């Protein structure tokens, strides 16, 4: 094993130890996200049981599969690094520590975030397995190729989310207080990732727009590949979008970080 790879693995091991101290905290985050999904699920169950939806695609098994997968994947692929970068590292001035270490700052953050995602994903899969044990059947594709494509799409989606959230957090160097922007991003995330209703059910102009935003990339694309009978061309379009956002946001994150370092003055100056 090369020295470089061994160094990365050692750092990753340290991240694992650090994050695993907060196992219950990660479970709590899963519940926080889960509450919003469960209430929407209950809302749709009740609405579909009591009335007639205008859209025939809205059925109880379909909507249940959709929301359960959205929650499971959201905990695994959507990064939450922005608050850490903005408040802990920049606002409180703790960024000096990581900057003085001979290890790239953003790569270190990525490793830390990956451990959090794996831990929360682990909890989510346990809860999903428990739901399946109660006898509920998820409406999933039986094609192994689609499963592989879903995993690849989820991995690419994680990168999109990481770069987007890193840029957001780094903006604190110039703006200091990001509360308003973070709330705005959170609302876009909830609507354009398809958490309120599936994106294909949004009103016409918003439907197309939402599907090409970076918020759809981490969760909506993998869920669609796994559950909907979409064409191969659409799947390639999703991959194309994800690669476009990775390249664009990845370059932008690097540029923001380099410029930000020059502009950063620290808390005491």
């Amino acid at each position, binding site marked *: 094993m090369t020295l470089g790879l061994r160094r990365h693995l050692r750092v990753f091991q340290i991240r694992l130890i650090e994050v695993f101290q907060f196992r219950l905290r990660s479970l709590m985050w899963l519940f926080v996200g889960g509450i919003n999904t469960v*209430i929407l699920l209950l809302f749709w169950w009740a*609405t579909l*049981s009591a009335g007639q939806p205008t859209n025939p695609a809205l059925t109880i098994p379909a909507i249940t599969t959709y929301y359960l997968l959205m929650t499971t994947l959201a905990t695994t692929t959507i990064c939450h690094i922005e608050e850490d970068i903005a408040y802990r590292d920049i606002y409180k001035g703790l960024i000096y520590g990581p900057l003085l270490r001979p290890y790239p700052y953003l790569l270190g953050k990525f490793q830390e975030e990956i451990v959090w995602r794996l831990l929360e994903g682990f909890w989510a899969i346990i809860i999903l397995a428990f739901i399946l044990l109660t006898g509920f059947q998820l409406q999933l594709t039986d094609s192994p190729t689609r499963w592989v494509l879903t995993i690849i799409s989820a991995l690419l989606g994680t990168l999109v989310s990481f770069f987007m959230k890193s840029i957001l957090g780094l903006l604190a160097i110039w703006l200091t207080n990001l509360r308003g922007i973070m709330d705005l991003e959170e609302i876009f995330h909830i609507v354009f990732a398809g958490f309120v209703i599936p994106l294909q059910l949004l009103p016409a102009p918003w439907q197309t727009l939402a599907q090409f935003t970076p918020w759809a990339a981490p969760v909506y694309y993998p869920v669609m590949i796994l559950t909907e009978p979409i064409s191969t061309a659409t799947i390639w379009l999703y991959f194309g979008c994800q690669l476009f956002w990775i390249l664009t946001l990845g370059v932008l994150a690097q540029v923001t970080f380099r410029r930000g370092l020059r502009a950063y003055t620290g808390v005491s100056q």
Partner: protein
Amino acid sequence: MKHFLQIIRQLMASYLEVALTYRLDFFQSIFASCLWSAFGFLSAYLVTSQTPSVLGLSRADMLLLTSTYGIIVGTHHWFCTRGFQGFWEIIHKGELEGFLLKPFDTITFLSLRNINWGNAVRAAGSVLTTIWVIQYYHFSVSWGSVLLFGLLSVPAFLTIYSLYTICVTFLIWYPYLSNALELVNSGVGTARYPIDITRYTPRFLSMWFLPFMVIVNIPTQALVHQLDWSTAAYFVLFSGGLWIFSRRFWLYGLRHYTGASS
């Protein structure tokens, strides 16, 4: 009581001064709270775009629920939410002793420690939106029902307050679980959904949301003359019981507080 009101007035004046000193933060806070209000209306619009009526409720009913949610929950966010959110750090750093020595009820003082004036705008905006929704959709509202809505908003506020108090008491034992407050926050966010959901969904799931849903649904039903007196009485009893329990639990939790040096 006079002493209590004097202190609250003083705290409100002090935090208004803070808000006007850090103006950008204040405007961001107004911006953020307006965004969340707008999101509530957007959600109501989106979910009603797929079905003509939701559990017998029209889009107008959903919008009314969203706007009254802004009044009740917005008022709590205005006075208390930020104060509760800073609580874990006080416990973690062992600073609670300083607050315990003050000649004022500790949990009340801690909850009012960071009044968020940005949310005052949200609460006021929600009052105006509610008036607009009532007039535009021709809801039948009388002065009596408005008064009843105001009266029932007090136990609704107390219910939210009690849920936060119970949560911060747990932080005495587990200060690192500060995100438990986000859990309560998300729970309170479910109050904007119609309570009739619980009639059509599995009880083992929906019962967890019932304490949150009553917060906004019961006062709103009173506003549009759809509330019977027995439900109102149960709601007041539930709220009062929860408040007494939260106070006792807080005092019990204090006995287990060890401070930073122990």
